[in-house]
């Protein structure tokens, strides 16, 4: 990415650091600055608003469950595109913010080949080359980028309707929009699980911005080494020794 994007992100991070604050205690590392967290929660808010207003329209069985949240079907239909626009907007900013750490590397391909060992709990520690984001996070991130593109294009077609884009375009967009939403729905379960009870200690990275050092050397060893200068494996072994003795 060009330097213009980096300058923009830096400016935004500085501005937001003045408004909000990070709580990083001793033995902890700063993971997500205020700007990142702000974007994350705006994306999350817009996502769920769009999800519930959308699924009311998607399925007759959900129509009377979800549309009253927004004041009825007509308002749900009226607001859904706006939730979507803001979702894409905030995720677009997040994409600029994260495009560098989200870049796919050879280490990510190796991580993916090893994913079974991590899911079934055999590998307690992530591979030492796992950086700020692991390959699973990157897959989800790029899936949402692709999903946003699909949402935006098909969404505008559905928004304007058949009298602008024709019957065929609307009918096709209807299906693509749904499929994109379903894939994201599947992804959000994993995302919420992993960031809360699935990997304890992760959630606070998105609330006060900090993670413990042990969290960092366990899940993102290469990032740990990058910010502390210490080797993750060594740090872990020292900690284990201290605990044991």
């Amino acid at each position, binding site marked *: 990415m060009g330097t213009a994007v980096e300058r923009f992100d830096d400016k935004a991070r500085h501005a937001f650091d003045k408004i909000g604050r990070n709580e990083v205690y001793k033995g902890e590392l700063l993971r997500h600055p205020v700007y990142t967290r702000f974007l994350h929660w705006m994306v999350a808010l817009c996502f769920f608003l769009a999800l519930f207003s959308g699924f009311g329209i998607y399925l007759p069985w959900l129509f009377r469950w979800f549309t009253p949240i927004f004041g009825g079907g007509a308002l749900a239909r009226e607001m859904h595109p706006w939730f979507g626009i803001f979702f894409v907007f905030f995720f677009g900013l997040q994409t600029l913010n994260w495009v560098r750490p989200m870049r796919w590397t050879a280490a990510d391909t190796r991580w993916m080949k090893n994913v079974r060992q991590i899911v079934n709990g055999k590998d307690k520690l992530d591979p030492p080359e796992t950086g700020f984001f692991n390959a699973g996070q990157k897959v989800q991130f790029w899936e949402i980028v692709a999903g946003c593109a699909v949402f935006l294009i098909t969404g505008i077609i559905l928004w304007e309707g058949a009298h602008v884009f024709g019957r065929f375009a609307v009918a096709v967009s*209807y299906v693509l929009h749904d499929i994109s939403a379903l894939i994201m729905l599947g992804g959000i*379960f994993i995302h*919420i699980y992993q960031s809360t009870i*699935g990997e304890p*200690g992760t959630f606070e990275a998105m609330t006060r911005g900090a993670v413990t050092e*042990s969290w960092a*050397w366990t899940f993102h060893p290469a990032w740990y080494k990058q910010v502390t200068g210490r080797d993750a494996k060594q740090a872990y072994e020292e900690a284990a020794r201290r605990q044991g003795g």
Partner: protein
Amino acid sequence: MSDRRTLQIKQMSAHPGPIAGDGVQRDYDVCKLIDTTTCIGCKACEVACVEWNDMPFSATTFDNTYQTMPETRWNFWNLIKFNEHQKEDGTIQWLMRKDQCMHCADPGCLRACPADGAIVQYTNGIVDFQQENCIGCEFCASGCPFNIPKFNPTTKKVYKCTLCSDRVGQGLEPACIKACPTGCLKFGSKDDMKFIAGERAHQLKENFGFDKAGVYDPESVGGTHVIYVLHDATNPEAYGGLPSNPQIPWSYTIWKWLAKPVLGTFALLGLLGVGLHYVMVGPRRPQPEPPTKEATNGNRG
């Protein structure tokens, strides 16, 4: 509406569960027959429609033909489509077709509609929009093969011909039928209208030399409650774009039918997946994990 419901609903858009009116009363399918061969393009039906439905004056668009405007509007439901058709022998034929909702037996608009009860089909076959339930998404326009539902940007609702369901419910014929001076419009039961249409097509073939004359009642939408007699049934497109094979997009048939199981699968797999992982494998904790109580008490190695 009187205290007794005159029209019972047999099909309702986006409605989970049974329909209260389905099969409650005996009723027969109504039908409007339009004989394009005797239409003189006087547009009395257009005026009658606007009059009966209390719609405001609508500006016309002159495009060097005898057509009032390019297509129907949200407040103009009945339009005589005009086409100066050149036949194979080079002679000219004026084709007039009364364009309005076809009241399909299998309505694409109703299938596409995501709002509970916004589009209903009565037991007599009339397809009606219930604007108070309409959410203004315009999916009906995408489901309709005849380009009929029209959006009002002010009210954000969609409107179309009701086949004068208010009149029919009281035992009257639709306003357009009443106004027609040539008798090219007829109204009655579907069986009767099909019989008359068939006879007329036969007459056109035998006595008037229209070898391709026939009845337009497309099977692809389950038949319609508005049927045409055409001079040339092999080329309905010549009559202001009447589709020869009207289709409902599969998005609103197959995909809508799949939607529930697919969503259920995704939601269940997601919840089950993470739930089972938590129970069977357990969370991944930062390492080293703090020693358990037993371990610190020295009960275990």
